[in-house]
């Protein structure tokens, strides 16, 4: 849980909006540090969390959360956290026979849970179509957000260079657009447009999409961030400690 990000998003472990669908996306950078933020935030808020880990193993998340002050093993023992190891299950699927991994994920939803996270670009690279992933996220949202008043947090990666006429990248771009439409809060992580910098790892664009009586209202804010060992710090563009 990064305190600066909490103040940006106006969330605390005691109060955050329920029924939200948060989308984390990145383009040519790595937004997984945001996953750790949300994971530790929800665990500190004492919600039940269901985590689908497709890319890294449980030990990886556990080691990092330890540094952020949350113990995943304890949460798992208490029953607060349900961790689904995508990698181990996938091996049993990939080698003897192939199964549609999308259908496997549907079984996970039966748990009554508040938070749900996953990493969806891996599903795309495994051959699940963008349409299936969009359907899955729609069902997630319907069940978790509307019925159970929970939150869904999803991480998507887009590798496109931003050209819309790339026909073969339609999978990930289409997925991005579909998911952005469905969600209520987006955090888009990008590298700095001016190039690589050792002290500023990139920029985050936070976009709230709220529905009000007269229509959709979007509010955007841009921050720069730096990831270090025990967390991440966020600051307004140009106010990095390396510059000032």
């Amino acid at each position, binding site marked *: 849980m990064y305190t600066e990000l909490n103040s940006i998003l106006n969330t605390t472990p005691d109060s955050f909006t329920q029924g939200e669908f948060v989308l984390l996306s990145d383009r*040519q*950078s*790595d937004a*997984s*540090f945001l996953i*750790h933020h949300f994971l530790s935030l929800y665990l500190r808020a004492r919600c039940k969390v269901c985590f689908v880990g497709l890319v890294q*193993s449980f*030990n*990886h998340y556990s*080691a*990092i959360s330890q*540094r952020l002050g949350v113990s995943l093993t304890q949460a798992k023992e208490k029953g607060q956290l349900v961790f689904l190891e995508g*990698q*181990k299950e*996938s*091996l049993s699927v*990939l*080698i003897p*026979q*192939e*199964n*549609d991994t999308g259908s496997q994920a549907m079984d996970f939803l039966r748990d009554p849970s508040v938070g749900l996270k996953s990493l969806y*670009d*891996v599903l*795309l*690279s*495994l*051959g699940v179509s963008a349409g299936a992933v969009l359907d899955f996220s729609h069902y997630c949202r319907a069940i978790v957000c509307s019925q159970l008043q929970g939150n869904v947090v999803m991480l998507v*990666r887009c*590798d*496109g*260079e931003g050209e819309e006429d*790339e*026909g*073969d*990248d339609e999978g*990930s771009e289409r997925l991005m657009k579909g998911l952005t439409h469905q969600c209520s809060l987006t955090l888009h992580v*990008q*590298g*700095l*447009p*001016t*190039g*690589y*910098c*050792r002290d500023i*790892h*990139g920029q985050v664009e936070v976009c709230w999409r709220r529905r009000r009586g007269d229509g959709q209202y979007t509010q955007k804010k841009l921050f720069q961030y730096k*990831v*270090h*060992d*025990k*967390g*991440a710090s966020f600051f307004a563009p140009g106010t990095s400690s390396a510059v000032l």
Partner: protein
Amino acid sequence: MAAPMSSVGKPSAERSPFNNTSFQKKTRSKLISIPGTRPSVQNGQLLVSTGVTSLDYLLGGGLAVGTVLLIEEDRYDSYSRMILKYFLAEGVVCRHELYVAAAQDNPDDILQELPAPILDDVAMHKPAEQPRLSREPPDALDAMKIAWRYQNLPKVQTALASSSRFGHYYDVSKTMEPEIRQAAKCHRFYLPEHPTQSSPPHSTMLESYSALLKSLQEVINREGFDVAAPMSNSRNILRIGLHSLGSALWGDDLCCHDNPKNGRALTTFLYGLRALLRSSLSVAVVTLPSHLIQDRAIMGSITRLCDNAIALESFKGSERETNPLYKDYHGLIHVRQVPHLNCLASKLPDHKDLAFKLKRKQFSIERLHLPPDLSDTVSRVSRGELAGATTVASACGSGSSGNKHLDF
């Protein structure tokens, strides 16, 4: 803290602090000590050497056990093949087990070309070896006249001495001797010799990849590299070398077409490979002819799926070969990805402009620097005109077209 003596044999026996205390030194490291590995200083991961010490430094001390290193081949597959051979040769010297898979060359040919290790202070198990310590001919060893202090020492050093060093040097002009090579256990996978099985109908993986994955899993389970296997006294590391994955010889059309039909076969295989590696004591090096892959998005997802990724770009045959800027080097090396394993921040190298040079006894990677211009001509060839767009898939945006240095 001294505990009272349990048995009072002699009343005047002195209390030796070493025998009679209940103090037990807590062993911090739960890591099993395997020859040829060492724990990382950054995050405590178990590391193995890639065989190239400068590449070890670039990757943060070495290659972590359970990860994949992707090497994007240079145009003629000369230097990437060299690094693969260094990796396998290091495995032989450290007594690890090897697994080599190739579709183009027979794995035996690759194994015969391994470079010879430079063993100056290390003795390997060789039957006809002369012990270094005695300078006399064998028949006079019974009575050493000069080195008589060494008379009682064993003649051949045990092979564990070779594993106390991390990272060795190799002489590229000589090949490894067959005795040393045969001491290491090698598993081979040569695609043309492997019977093709029909793949299950809904598979996104090709038969070649699924056969390879199955064979890898069999070897890991059979030889006991699985982490879940019962702990025996001797654990070893399996070094996996996969040559030229994704090329047309594996049956993949990723490198042949702009819109490949099996676009996701290789990515599915890499995902399965990583899942296998994470649950076993093995490490893999995969080379990939990335210059043939047209689809940048698929290349991006392939890079993401591998933990470490570097790309080699050799100057051979290109216009840069005759360029005075690059005359000391053989090519450029780009670090595409470094892993974050159990930690939030990753350690990217500080400098993006790295070049490599293959010397006879060392493969060195250095920072590219402009030599001082001592000629009369004022205009110096600026680096911005030469360096192509080197995009680094890290937290930096897509690079602008080269750095434009101000020319005075």
